């Protein structure tokens, strides 16, 4: 699974993207965020307040219950501030 990070998430994690092998029981956005959060203190820190993190699956906004799979492009980022 490809995961992209933007804005302060990218800065705090020190990377803009990674390829990860997630456990078979990680099948939703919510489960993915929980799994990511236990990968280390930096992940725990950026994910501790889920209300300020948005998730996109294959370039569309996703809800916690939406499915994720190994072929998906996932992105984590703060609420957008364009315009």
């Amino acid at each position, binding site marked *: 699974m490809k995961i992209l990070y933007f*804005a302060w998430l990218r800065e705090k994690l020190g990377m803009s993207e990674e390829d990860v092998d997630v456990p078979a029981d990680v099948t939703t956005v919510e489960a993915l965020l929980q799994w990511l959060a236990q990968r280390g203190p930096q992940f725990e820190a950026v994910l501790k307040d889920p209300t300020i993190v948005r998730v996109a699956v294959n370039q569309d906004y996703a809800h916690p219950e939406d499915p994720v799979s190994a072929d998906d492009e996932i992105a984590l980022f703060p609420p957008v501030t*364009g315009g």
Partner: protein
Amino acid sequence: MIRVQQEDFDVGAEMAALRAGNTAIGGMAAFVGLVRDMSGGGDVSSMTLEHYPGMTEKQLQAIEDEARRRWPLQNSLIIHRYGTLEPGDQIVLVITASAHREAAFESAAFLMDWLKTKAPFWKREDGTAGGQWVEARESDDSAADRWNAKPKNG
């Protein structure tokens, strides 16, 4: 039409191109967003716009498609820049063209409101107070929500 680009744009040239050869257009509305030099944290010397290539184009196209579903537009254009910009620089351009002014005015406002809450851009301001990511504003969410409460049909 949507464009995501680093380079500046010429509002007059874009408006002329959008209306060229179409005399069914009775009016056009244009909005230009600019970099301001003041924010919550002090003077801003530059702003850097990060975006999500691919998703940005996909979301802008969806926003434009929605505007053209809701209003009878002859033509429309969204240009959004990314990269490092300075106070006074142009960031975003929305132009709508229609037979009558209401559709042009309303759809331009709709495009900006939706763009601010759906297009994956993030602003980082650098200035005397250091660098900081601009936080999303609740007023932007409520501005976007008003189009859900009162859908207009031309």
